[in-house]
């Protein structure tokens, strides 16, 4: 589980790493809109250029993005096959017995592949340069206006950050229970479906029971240290905007504007 690339923070120092999480989240949304606008290949080229510069600034390798994209390849291949059999417009590029491949089938699939690739690059850029906790803090600050509508923004952020804090602990716990069950003869790798289900149950039941115990302990610890949900607290980490954050947001806005022009004006 530890070799997941998608969504992993890469602890290096770059301008993008130091940017305010709020600015990065806002930029992500602006660029996501840009990716979904029907701007054609030129629009994609513009966004791709911007993201490539971003990757360079963040000192990330393209191979990392491609790795994150790998799990989606199967889906893309499936899409290509569907398109080959259903799309019958454009030039006939290839014909053999009952298989006729038209240009639009290939180009449409490619268009979607590129769109997805851009999205993966964009999200990787955010998650690789921003610690999960900073992300939470940024989201909380951005959601602040919603607190007026009685949305418990702070509690949501607290829940997310605790969940993030406990992911490694729970993974460790899972491994320990799996080893304990293996030593009692449970086989997690082989067997019929029925055997597999009972093997997984032997993992999930103790895992849940321990997780509830942890939750209870944690609630006690938080309460004993004076945490009251909804009460006013001071913040240890406060976010401050710097010039680099304004530059990031303006650049993202410019890219979005460019894409809008390409999509609707030209």
């Amino acid at each position, binding site marked *: 589980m530890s070799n997941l690339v998608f969504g992993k923070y890469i602890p290096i120092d770059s301008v993008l790493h130091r940017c305010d999480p709020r600015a990065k989240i806002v930029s992500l949304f602006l660029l996501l809109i840009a990716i979904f606008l029907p701007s054609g290949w030129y629009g994609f080229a513009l966004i791709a250029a911007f993201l490539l510069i971003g990757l360079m600034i963040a000192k990330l390798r393209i191979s990392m993005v491609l790795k994150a994209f790998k799990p989606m390849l199967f889906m893309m291949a499936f899409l290509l096959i569907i398109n080959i059999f259903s799309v019958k417009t454009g030039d006939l590029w290839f014909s053999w017995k009952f298989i006729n491949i038209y240009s639009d089938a290939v180009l449409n699939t490619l268009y979607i592949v590129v769109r997805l690739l851009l999205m993966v690059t964009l999200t990787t850029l955010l998650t690789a340069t921003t610690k*999960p*906790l900073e992300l939470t803090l940024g989201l909380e600050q951005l959601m602040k206006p919603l607190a007026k509508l009685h949305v418990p923004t702070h509690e949501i952020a607290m829940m997310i*950050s*605790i969940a*993030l*804090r406990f992911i*490694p*602990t729970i993974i*460790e716990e899972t491994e320990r229970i799996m080893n304990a069950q293996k030593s009692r003869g449970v086989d997690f790798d082989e067997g019929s479906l029925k055997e597999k289900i009972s093997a997984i149950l032997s993992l999930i039941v103790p895992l849940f029971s321990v997780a509830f*115990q*942890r939750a209870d*302990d*944690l609630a*006690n*610890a*938080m*309460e*004993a*240290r*004076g*945490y*009251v949900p909804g*009460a*006013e*607290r*001071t*913040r*240890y*980490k*406060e976010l401050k905007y710097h010039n680099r954050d304004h530059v990031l947001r303006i650049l993202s806005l410019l890219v979005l504007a460019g894409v809008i022009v390409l999509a609707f004006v030209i």
Partner: protein
Amino acid sequence: MNAIEVKNLSYAYDSQKNALQGVSFNVEKGSYTTIIGHNGSGKSTLAKLIVGLLEPKSGEIYIEGLKMEEKNLPQIRNKIGIVFQNPDNQFIGSTVRDDIAFGLENHKVPTSQMDSIIEQYATLVRMQDFLNSEPEHLSGGQKQRVAIAGVLAMKPDIIVFDEATSMLDPAGKEELKRMIRSFHGNEDLTIISITHDIEEACFSDECIVLNEGKIVLEGKPEVVFEKADLMRKIGLDIPFSYYVKNLFKARGIKVHGDTAEEIAEELWQSHSKN
């Protein structure tokens, strides 16, 4: 003034017999009190009642003169802190720094003061070099020390250790016990340690022995550990040094030391005198 007064306290979990029945005791300000008992004796329930995590079925608790009730709870939380048994389940922040800050945030300490407070208390528990470490990269003993720093940073009058050393390896255990003892003697800090480690009880001022929800023995360690038979009857042992002392006493030889080393020293000296 007493730091803690407990009067006729009873508590029962749902559908069970009383976990605590009619428990009364006082804890002197600045003292070091150990509460000992085997599993299921009600000692952890008592800890949760004292820090206000459970509500008593009957009886009263006073913390620094304040009665334990809903409206006093925020004030009482400022006065009393607790370190729990499981090092992982009380680590709330994602780093040592964040974890110490958690309590400060709750107590509305201004952001500008937090860094210096965090550094001060991290240094006190010798965790100053690990401020940016994540919990999964720390040992159980280190996590417990962070928990102590987190509690002390809130400047409590009373600190409760609820079997804080029981999940640690021997080295971590020794280090933590030494640290707890080093806090003793500070007039402004009352220490209560709930434990089944009888060796730890030797170093306390007062011992309270619980069995099946009732106090069966109370007093200075040397008084409590004289009752070796009673202690064994309720499933507790006495420290080795007291075992030796009691044997000598039965033979009419008086020894004064509290630890095995002190007793050995005394015996050598009396041997060379004769």
